[in-house]
């Protein structure tokens, strides 16, 4: 039953290979066409609009063609998505604007320590495949809270799941819309607030009519765009510089040259002896923070609802497992390329900027400097006169750019690569389209996770269990629009903390959901009370640590035994005892909630653990509380134990059956 296609969209799903091959070919043809138009002298602005416009039209077209009025298609794409395509869709669902645009820049700035993100955001899929996804697929859930409700007997567990889901998905979706706004602003010169709502339209058109089914097939199309856009510039650069179009291999040579340059900078007084060496471990994070960060990102990956729900769409448990492997392969392609971007840009900056007279700065420095994204001597590099003045203000500056004078925003590394490498504008447009695809696809998945939790879990399962199918779908779509508009409105107000808060989602999901999901499958003795206590304790401790260290750090120091974090290299406190006493006595510092620029914000904690890894506390607490409370409460009923056995056994029908 699962493999046969029926009803509207059957033609689409039975010709997948041909359709996506044609689509990919068409996309390459389009890139070439735009390239020709550029040579003919068409203005860059119009080329940019062509890229954005055409790709969004294609997504909208897929969204309309795959519309549906069936509940199971709306929530789980009718469980007809083959493992391979679900892998691609998960890749797009997973890789956000931050991965596409920000990751390479993070690696540029942090060097080796930035690899914690590369490791954390890939290794988590091992946990997904082995511990969680196949069992949730067998159960037949529509949403993650569905599973919690069935396993832990009731709506209390369901609501706890919804709470954690909301907390980790909403800021995340806001960040994606923020990302689409930035891309449209930078490449099309669009007004930021307007661009947020254009992004909103792009997201809704993919998800509203067809729910999960439409989102799946648009995400596949978006994956193709984003991976092509990510690879082309860096492959080109590698072929150009090292004569081999395999950047993942050739950047080893770039690393060697970077290391040589670093040593010569230190020797010639162009950088302090304490400069961050690119491949040296533990210069930005202490070893403990590095490993806790990897751990929290991995466990968080395995607990994020918008990722887990993608595996509800495969035809079988077997395919769900294989699909996780495909997902990881598709994600891997981007993540093992990102360090190459970082290395090539760093080599470019080190070999053409550092140690050169200020008058010799290339044009791209000023192009990005005008937007405040490149700084020299602490000021935006908007013109030669400005940077000369800024550097002259520093005592003893010889008018030659030093390592410590140069600053770059993490977003610029990927965006500026085509320009730095001297590639035609068509490639820049392509990168913008890729970034847009990454942001839109992730936003789609998150929005669906949020709206489905509200419409399926809260409305249908709790408020009105007798709602007819038609009404459920109407409510689902209405909630989708409401959540989307709310997210776009929040993004348009430019919340300053939003990007930092995305990193919190991983810890919140890890601390809140991981114990209940994993023990729910692997430990029969886990009880309803244990799970609810575990979720609330794990989520609560994680949230407490995040909020206190970020917004009320002085309370953390005064009442909760927190102390200054330590410098990862020297081990000295970031804020010494005297400064701490002074800050605590200063009402300007202790007037919480404090801003990110506050001297104490995110710089205090327990055991020198950064707040980005706050599940280091939440997860163990959640596990222990769940264990202890489960042991103290009566063993789950015979029926429930049979239910667990059924989830563990691939054979047979799904346990949750949709009434038709």
């Amino acid at each position, binding site marked *: 039953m699962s493999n046969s296609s029926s009803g509207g969209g059957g033609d689409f799903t039975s010709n997948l290979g041909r359709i996506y091959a044609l689509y990919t070919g068409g996309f390459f043809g389009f890139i070439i066409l735009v390239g020709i138009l550029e040579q003919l002298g068409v203005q860059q602005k119009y080329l940019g609009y062509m890229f954005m416009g055409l790709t969004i039209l294609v997504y909208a077209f897929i969204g309309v063609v795959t519309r549906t009025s069936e509940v199971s298609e709306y929530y789980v794409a009718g469980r007809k998505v083959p493992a391979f395509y679900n892998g691609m869709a998960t890749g797009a669902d997973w890789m956000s604007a931050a991965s596409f645009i920000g990751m390479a820049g993070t690696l540029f700035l942090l060097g080796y320590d930035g690899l914690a993100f*590369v490791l954390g955001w890939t290794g988590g899929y091992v946990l997904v495949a082995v511990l969680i996804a196949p069992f949730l697929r067998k159960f037949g859930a529509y949403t993650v809270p569905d599973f919690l409700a069935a396993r832990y007997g009731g709506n209390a567990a369901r609501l706890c799941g919804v709470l954690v889901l909301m907390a980790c998905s909403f800021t995340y979706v806001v960040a994606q819309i923020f990302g689409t706004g930035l891309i449209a602003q930078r490449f099309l010169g669009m007004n930021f607030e307007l661009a947020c709502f254009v992004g909103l339209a792009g997201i809704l058109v993919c998800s509203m009519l067809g729910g999960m089914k439409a989102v799946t097939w648009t995400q596949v199309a978006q994956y193709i765009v984003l991976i092509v856009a990510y690879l082309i510039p860096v492959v080109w650069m590698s072929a150009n510089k090292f004569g081999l179009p395999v950047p993942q291999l050739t950047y080893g*040579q770039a690393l060697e040259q970077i290391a040589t340059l670093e040593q010569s900078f230190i020797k010639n007084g162009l950088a302090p002896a304490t400069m961050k060496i690119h491949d040296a471990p533990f210069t930005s994070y202490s070893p403990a923070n590095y490993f806790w960060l990897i751990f929290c990102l991995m466990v968080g990956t395995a607990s994020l609802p918008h990722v887990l729900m993608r595996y509800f769409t495969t035809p079988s448990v077997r395919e769900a*497992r294989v699909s996780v492997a495909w997902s990881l392969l598709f994600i891997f392609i981007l993540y093992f390329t990102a360090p190459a971007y970082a290395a090539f840009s760093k080599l470019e900056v080190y070999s053409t900027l550092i140690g050169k007279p200020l008058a010799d700065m290339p044009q791209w420095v000023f192009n990005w400097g005008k937007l405040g994204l490149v700084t020299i001597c602490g000021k935006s590099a908007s013109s030669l006169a400005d940077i000369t003045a800024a550097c002259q203000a520093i005592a003893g500056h010889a008018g030659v750019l030093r390592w410590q004078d140069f600053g770059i925003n993490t977003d610029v590394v990927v965006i500026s690569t085509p320009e730095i490498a001297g590639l035609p504008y068509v490639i820049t447009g392509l990168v913008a389209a890729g970034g847009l695809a990454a942001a839109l696809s992730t936003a789609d998945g998150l929005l669906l996770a949020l709206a489905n939790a509200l419409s399926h879990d809260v409305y249908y399962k709790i408020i009105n269990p007798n709602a007819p199918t038609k009404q459920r779908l109407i409510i689902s779509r209405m909630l989708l629009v409401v959540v989307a508009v709310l997210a776009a409105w929040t993004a348009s107000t430019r919340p300053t903390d939003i990007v930092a808060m995305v990193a919190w989602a991983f810890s919140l999901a890890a601390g809140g959901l991981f114990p209940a999901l994993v023990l729910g499958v692997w430990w029969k003795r886990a009880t309803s009370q244990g799970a609810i206590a575990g979720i609330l304790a794990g989520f609560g401790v994680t949230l407490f640590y995040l909020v206190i260290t970020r917004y009320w750090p002085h309370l953390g120091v005064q009442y909760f035994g927190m102390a200054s974090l330590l410098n990862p290299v020297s081990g000295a406190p970031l804020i010494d005892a005297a400064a701490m006493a002074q800050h605590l006595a200063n009402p300007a510092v202790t007037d919480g909630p404090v801003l990110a620029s506050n001297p104490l914000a995110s710089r205090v904690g327990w055991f020198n653990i950064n707040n980005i890894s706050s599940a280091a506390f939440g997860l163990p607490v959640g596990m222990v509380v769940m264990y202890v409370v489960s042991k103290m409460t009566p063993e789950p009923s015979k029926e429930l134990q049979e239910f667990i056995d059924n989830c563990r056994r691939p054979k047979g029908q799904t346990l949750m059956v949709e009434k038709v």
Partner: protein
Amino acid sequence: MSEQDFERYWQRTSSLMIKMIALWFIFGIAVHFFAPQLNAIKIFGFPLGFYMASQGSLIAFVVMLFWFGKAQDQIDRDEGVAEE
């Protein structure tokens, strides 16, 4: 399916799980404890510690997952709980 058969199935599944988690821990965490030492070794210009965190472990994860899909399916078939 008898309770005993299912017990055996779950035991095999669990031991595969433990193997996978052990490998996950080795490649995800343990190997990077030695990054400073591994960095002394260079391969194609890559310091080995850097290489493991940027590519080596990632390749291991991908290979592990495809292998896991096969191995778990084999167990399902052997024990008669595979889907039709």
